């Protein structure tokens, strides 16, 4: 099978600070990738390159056999992006905002409007769909962002911490939705810090640290390599330099002055 996304030798620096140091990943159609790593590991940078937000990277990115540099617009058409609590033009209403997104994806107006109304209703936002979003809570905004990423029914869905701010019920809805989308053959690229969710939803986990891939495989494979542990423990083993319980001890011991 041909990979749907392939990152080859991807490098990116912010000034003199390297963020990505040669990432090589092949992703196949229908896979649900859990993309994890500590803060500053380069997760968001990878995602931003894939979505076309960052263009001055080194290395090659292919999506559906198209080079990202040469076919940026066509690639964007195939990708849905759900950012984490991103800024919004929040003086617009959800209907106005999502209709605009739909049109930017070249969707038919009437189809888009019907889809938007249904999706907002599914998230329980029917009564707010003509209110300006500046009065919305974090969770309501995140729901709008999730809809904006799925609206054009893309083959590849990139989610950056999509559950931020959502209440427990909405989290269940989104998790169910992800597994249904995966069943439909969508390729999902899921970035998160929530190990328990990643463990459950993804069928392949990629762990990056300081700009390089340090583990790649199914959860079971990772367990075989690292001992039969939870993903949280595996993550800590691979990425934490010092023991985390020592850090907690140090925090507690800070109270002990002047002993």
């Amino acid at each position, binding site marked *: 099978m041909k990979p749907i996304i392939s990152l080859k030798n991807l490098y990116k620096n912010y000034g003199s600070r390297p963020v990505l140091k040669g990432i090589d990943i092949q992703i196949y159609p229908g896979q649900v990738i859990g993309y994890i790593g500590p803060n500053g590991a380069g997760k968001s940078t990878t995602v931003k390159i894939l979505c076309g937000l960052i263009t001055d990277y080194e290395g090659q990115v292919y999506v559906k056999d198209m080079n990202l540099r040469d076919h940026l617009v066509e690639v964007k058409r195939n990708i849905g992006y759900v950012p984490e609590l991103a800024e919004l033009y929040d003086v*617009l209403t959800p209907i106005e905002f999502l209709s605009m997104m739909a049109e930017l994806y070249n969707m038919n107006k009437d189809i888009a409007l019907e889809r938007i109304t249904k999706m907002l209703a599914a998230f329980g936002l029917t009564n707010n769909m003509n209110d300006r979003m500046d009065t919305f809570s974090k969770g309501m905004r995140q729901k709008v962002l999730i809809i904006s990423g799925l609206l054009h029914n893309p083959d590849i869905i990139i989610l950056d911490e999509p559950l931020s701010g959502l209440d427990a019920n909405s989290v269940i809805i989104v998790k169910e939705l992800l597994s249904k989308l995966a069943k439909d053959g969508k390729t999902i690229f899921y970035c998160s810090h929530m190990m328990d969710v990643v463990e459950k939803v993804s069928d392949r986990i990629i762990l990056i640290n300081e700009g390089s891939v340090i583990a790649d495989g199914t959860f079971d494979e990772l367990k075989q390599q690292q001992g039969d542990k939870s993903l949280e423990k595996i993550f800590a083993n691979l990425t934490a330099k010092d023991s985390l319980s020592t850090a907690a001890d140090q925090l507690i011991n800070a109270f002990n002055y002047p002993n």
Partner: protein
Amino acid sequence: MNFINAALLRFVLIPSALYRKIGVNTQQLKVILNAKLIMDDRRPNTFQQIKKSRNNKPIRFATLGTMLLSALMGLLFLISFMFGKSYETKLTIYFSFYVITLASILIADFTGVLIDVRDNFIILPKPVSDKTFVVSRLLHIFIHVCKLVIPMILPAIVFLILNKGVISIIPFLFVTLMATLFIIFLINACYILILKLTTPSKFQSIISYIQIAFAILFYAGYQLVPRLMDEISISQYEISEYAGIILLPTYWFAGAWQQLYGWDNTLQLWLCLTLTIMVPLLSIWIVIKYFAPSFNQKLSMITGSTGEFLNTDKPAKKNASSFYSSMLSKLFTKKGVERISFLFTWKMMLRSSDFKMKVYPAIGYIVVVIVATLIRDKTFSFADVASQTKHGIFYTLALIYCSNLLLIAALGQITMYEKYKAAWIFFITPVAHPGKLISGSIKAAIAQFFFPLVLAIFIFITSLAGPIAIPNLLLGIANELLVTAIAAYMGVSKLPFSSPQQIDSGNTIRVLAAMTLGIVVAFIHYLLYRIIVFVSIFAALSFVASWYIFNAVSNLSWQKIYRTYNEI
């Protein structure tokens, strides 16, 4: 912290024993004030924003910059001592400048600096007593006002010492103190009134409208007062001869000074002195007694987005006003990205308070300029315009060629937005020609800020002068569009509402260039005015050229734009 802040902090903490007696924790008080003053010092004033865009050094010594600016303002106030026979007149004008300027600065600072909503998250959850909190806020306001007022009145103090002797300073300082109290409680009362009348969520936008009004008033004052004064021979003017003058608060302050300094003992001056002392004190009392208790509580609700959100039971209705904008969008733009951008920009211009704050004052300035010009030029008559005499032609052209000032102001702002990072949506969607986003937004600005005005002018002039004026009007409009298009083509690389609010020196140069070009074109037009054939040909050419340039803008590629973005 710089020495000015340190000195002021030490000064306000002198009566610490007294603070402790009324139940204030002076340790906490000092810590809170210290932090606030450090933050003040790092908040850029307008003067320093220019520097910031050039190098990214962190802002320091903002206090010194603010003080310098306010000293310059104070220097400008000295103009008032040129007017009138008596010091009553001179000081009335002086205090009018003082009150308007200080009020307009403070009304902005009160929301931004002095009533910091972050206090609600940071200070209130800590074990800080209400009294400590209130006193810290009052002292912070006091320090802030001192930093503005002291440099502002310094030039006047020097002037008074030179002309009236050192002794004249004592009543001046007293009167200034009262005037300052008057301003502070005027603003306070204004805030409280707004909070009483509306919901906290509308508070910010009402404050911004008041700021807009102040800015216009301020400008009108500087433009019109000297001109009106001109009429009534500058040096012989005596303000106290007007019967109703006693109703003007700034006259009270001048009268009070006159009474204290000259001891003239007239009834009117005694009345002034009484009002000067009583009104500020009385207003403090009223504010504290009746309004203040609910004030803080209500203010804490201004936080806006996170605190409250609508959860209405009924579905909201769709706006009906979109009909007009969608009609215009079909008239001006091609289907697709350009039209989306047009409608988006149209809505954002109407709703972003940021944008309105920056652009709406321009409407006021233009009205002021027109009124000022008409007052000055006694020879103006509508008959001239109607019969298109030389004078009439001049006014016709001036009207048309000035009509895009508003548009220029709007175009300078459509790329800026407080939450500029929201522009990610343009980068992740398959937009092939970002130029269409830009041309769509420029057309929206033209439709909202240029079209209605120019249509009114067109109807007005045509109804006065008849159809003979039409070719010239069309040429004028076409030329304005051309100038706008050229300016847009020279400057564009930014998408609508996609960059932070900052003073962009490149933008200023573009505006100046556009205006210069406009003047040159207007002059050539003036020379050709009566040769209708030429005028018609040029009008057609100009329309074609602007259409061509707009097309070029809409075909801009991502390469041109990516240079400006990468870190959204």
